């Protein structure tokens, strides 16, 4: 059994990694909300093209800051997304930047609902949860089809204009670096351990077969088998937890 002191230290280190994501996100959120207020942008009155153009200009420097800042090694992409406008003609706007091989580039998504490749972010929990509840979200690991087309974790905070949530500011976690750093923290424990999300999916683990993205127990086993977790410590407010794993066999 891991000793309580070490476990406590590991929990704090893991939480610090997650908190650093939100710190970066909240700076961008504040920056964009201030710009929208200062420029008196009425998101309801602008067309999707106009709003996208505005967001592109206002968020570009914030994206550059996030993707080249201090804790940027854990962040692969960031942007702002809005679903607002008169009920009859609600329109989607999205701007997004990614870093690949140390180069930051804008990435365009397909927002045409008649297209096979339509990136319908309204149904993604990282968008719908902050928009509905005004609370931050942490989604994944999941495969972001039509977006990154790779395994990712997305963190998001609401974007509020005149007291109304109109969208989100979000970031994609750079999975390889983030997972490697979490795994290194887990190595300090003397038993196998994993970081899991709210639906018990592996974020990082020291157990060889439990790779990022897999459920802790498969769908078929979920009901029948006992969970391999022997103890669970909550991390941050998003349902993530550190779980200690029973030895195999």
């Amino acid at each position, binding site marked *: 059994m891991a000793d309580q002191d070490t476990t406590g230290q590991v929990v704090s280190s893991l939480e610090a990694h997650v908190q650093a994501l939100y710190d970066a996100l909240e700076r961008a959120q504040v920056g964009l909300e201030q710009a929208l207020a200062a420029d008196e942008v009425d998101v309801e009155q602008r067309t999707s093209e106009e709003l996208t153009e505005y967001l592109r200009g206002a968020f*570009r420097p914030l*994206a*550059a800051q996030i993707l080249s800042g201090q804790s940027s090694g854990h962040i692969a992409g960031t942007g702002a997304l809005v679903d607002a406008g008169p009920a009859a003609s609600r329109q989607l706007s999205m701007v997004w930047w*990614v870093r*690949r091989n140390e*180069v*930051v*580039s*804008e*990435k*365009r*998504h*397909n927002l*045409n609902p*008649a*297209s*096979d*490749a*339509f*990136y319908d972010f309204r*149904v993604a*929990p990282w968008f719908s949860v902050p928009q509905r509840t005004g609370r931050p979200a942490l989604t994944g*690991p*999941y*495969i*972001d*089809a*039509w*977006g990154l*087309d*790779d*395994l990712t974790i997305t963190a998001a905070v609401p974007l509020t204009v005149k007291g109304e949530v109109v969208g989100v500011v979000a970031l994609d976690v750079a999975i390889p670096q983030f997972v490697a750093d979490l795994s290194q923290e887990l190595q300090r424990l003397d038993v196998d351990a994993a970081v899991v999300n709210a*639906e018990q*999916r592996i974020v990082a683990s020291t157990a060889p077969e439990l790779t990022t*993205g*897999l*459920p802790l127990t*498969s*769908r*078929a*086993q*979920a009901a029948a088998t006992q969970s391999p977790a022997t103890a669970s410590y909550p991390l941050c407010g998003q349902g993530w937890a550190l779980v200690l794993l029973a030895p195999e066999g």
Partner: protein
Amino acid sequence: LVTDVLSTLTRDVLFAPLDAEGRTETVVNRLRTAVTLGVLADGNQLPNEVELAAQFNVAPGTLREALAILRDEGIVETRRGRAGGSFIRVPDSLHVSHGLAILRSMSPGDLRDSSDWRATIAGSSAYFAAERASDENVQTLAALADDLGTAPDEATARRHDTRFHIELAAAAQSRRLSTAAINLQVAYAPVLPLVYEAPQVRKDVGAGLREVAELVRSGAADQARRLAWEIADETGRRLLQLRAGPRRPGTRGRTGKVAK
């Protein structure tokens, strides 16, 4: 900060440079596919001819020939003057006519091979999805299957079909399966509207894929794999028959299920 624009994988695949000898017909097919998949939407302006030719790695003359063919088909409209340029138009008949053109450009062996590959991706995706899918994946799959069953036309049915299969690969938590499924969208999806002209086929395939979603929900990996594979295989068989056209009496018509 560099502001190069990256775009979706589908777009990257469609606009990838052609092999050594890019032919007019290949450029026409790529652009028509981009329009039928909605990657180029009604009213979108095409990049200028020099840029587009460079992107496809074809001679400017080849691109001009391709645009002339698309203009005759009513898919590209060229306006002169200051606000001029080439714009996309989407005629209603495009999905079926383009589907037939692509179907005829494939040999029966090619078609069989592509269908086998699609069934392989679908089956493997279903297997891993049954072990790994999130509840949210399952809900999306069930909704897409139902939408396919009640789709009002062949183009909408095709869209729900491809989105179902790509969601299935995403639910498998596999980047490689997702990428393979998206590549198939470009290589295979243009012919799918042909099988979905019949409302009964939309209904049957929708019901079948709904069952796949339920098998994924209950974690029945082997059954999910088998059913997803069979549905894709049946679509492949329908396409081979469509490609062959009406059959003479006394020849082999619909073969039905082959013994397994």
